[in-house]
């Protein structure tokens, strides 16, 4: 018992989960995380989770545009200007490529950022609190720190049960 440092509330229904999270927060109990088979917007709202990926993506896109133009200009105006069909070397047709490559850099770097941020890579070992959370169960994880006595634990357990947890387990990660 002493070793186990996590309280898992396992739910069947997404709505109940978000309610439960709400209750827990009201009783200022820190919810470490919520594991679910699909995204739960309400939970994010309740946990006040934010991400800054969109800003990053914008930068990547901007870089793509600028970089492409710089490259095109350097290659076909400065480095080796060749004349094709009487067109000026610095021609409108750059726009097409700038457009496409903006998207490419945006997509690739966004993905990269996401993976890095999530520390995901092929073959990373996982230890899920409850593997059913990729199937049909929704798991609330609560950190059990030293100063948390059994009373507190029981309270949490009760709270979870009340808000519809089908089972409440202790586990250690």
């Amino acid at each position, binding site marked *: 018992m002493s070793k186990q440092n996590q309280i898992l509330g396992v739910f069947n229904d997404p709505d109940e989960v978000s309610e439960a999270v709400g209750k827990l927060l009201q009783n200022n109990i820190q919810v470490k995380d919520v594991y679910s088979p699909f995204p739960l917007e309400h939970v994010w709202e309740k946990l006040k989770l934010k991400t800054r990926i969109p800003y990053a993506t914008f930068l990547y896109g901007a870089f793509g545009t600028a970089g492409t133009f710089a490259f095109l200009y350097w290659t076909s105006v400065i480095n080796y200007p060749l004349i094709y069909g009487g067109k000026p070397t610095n021609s409108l047709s750059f726009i097409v490529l700038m457009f496409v490559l903006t998207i490419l850099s945006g997509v690739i770097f966004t993905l990269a*950022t996401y993976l890095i941020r999530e520390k995901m890579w092929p073959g990373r070992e996982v230890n899920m609190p409850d593997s059913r959370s990729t199937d049909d169960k929704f798991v609330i994880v609560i950190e059990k720190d030293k100063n948390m006595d059994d009373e507190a634990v029981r309270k949490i357990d009760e709270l979870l049960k009340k808000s519809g947890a089908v089972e409440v387990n202790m586990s250690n990660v």
Partner: protein
Amino acid sequence: MYNVKVRGVLIEGNKSYHDITQDVNGPLLSKTTPNWWWMAAFVASSMLIWGVWGFYNTVTVGTGTWGLNNSVSWGWAIINFVWWIGIGHAGTAFSIFLLVLHQKWRTSINRAAEAMTIFAVMAAGMFPLIHMGRVWDGFYAFPYPNTRGPLWTNFNSPLFWDVTAISTYLTASFLFWYVGMMPDFASIRDRTVSKIKKKIYGILSFGWLGSARGWLRFESAALLMGGLTAPLVVSVHSIVAMDFAAGIVPGWHSTIFPPFFVVGAIFSGFAMVLTLMIIVRKVYKYEEYVTRKHLDAIARVLTFVSLIMGVAYVTEIFIAWYSNSPYEMYVFFKSRAIGDYAFEFWAMIVCNAIIPQLFWFKKIRTNITMVFIISIFINIGMWFERFVIVVTSLSKTWLPSTWHNYSPTTTEVAIYVGTLGFFVLGILLFLRFLPMMAASELKGILKETSIVTENTKNHE
């Protein structure tokens, strides 16, 4: 918010979350591979082998083995290229457009559609390379640093835009597709009992957890990638269209081409999706997920698009007449309408503009067999469209002294059939080893889009 009363149910038959997991993962986890799969795979691979022969023939002997000549120097290779690219549009169109537009009904189809995109675009991507005959020189088309000055590529050439656009498109849609699958890989990882599968799907899932924070980032990343890729759906085929529109060949040189091609692409793409899904839902018993409503929705889209196609054809012809250029007029009114390629021309009109109009009738729209047949017709019609554009225009250009007709050789046909084989084989492998529906997304919409089920009731 999605309203079941208004829109009707998207997932039928009282599915619980677990059922979905079972239904999606089932085929992957089962040890036995169904016989129909083997048979299909055999047919597909024999097609592929014939294609490989054609490819070998081309590479060793030369493009002389094709029916092309100095006047008509683009033929089946380019036609098929454009055709495949067109088909390759459905996936992205589905997942991304509908994702951006929050169309919930896409969830059960988009995964398969995206897979289709990947393989279709791969099939398409081969053609420009084969078309050259000397495939080993293909790398010249990329601007890499070299000791030739350095000598770069011609950034004005639509063909170069093409190379860029298509590789971008392939990359983007592949990544998007893969990212979407990671949660489902995880789910398989956690369900399977076999050690190997666990390892493999574990690696594939990049160690997915499904925590709230993870989901948040995942959702935003996915949405961003989707949002970025969305314009590609338009741009890629516009650029393909520019291959022609930027050329001065009568019958090509027209501003209508980019939108016209994009629409055509979506047209053929949706048709191909229809064709596939009708088969898949049969063999995998997925009627509850891919419901008649889905098919109906697609059918409606097709009807609308086919109308646009019809308008496009008429516009083209009108402009040809309006331009009062003898060259344009000859191509449209002599060469196409009554000339050597009249059959292809009229086949195109009938298959694309007329037959789909049958969807106006609910009877036909709801009759799966009819829908299937019509979708096939559309695919054929779109192929003819590309034939008409490429060949008829080239065979009758500016100087009558250079006019020459074109007909394909076995080598060309073989290569085309080969890519069909490749495509089918790809889809089969996808069906066998990858989750063919986005389980997580399905779960996400289950509650709000299906009739209230038991397991949710008793908690009230």
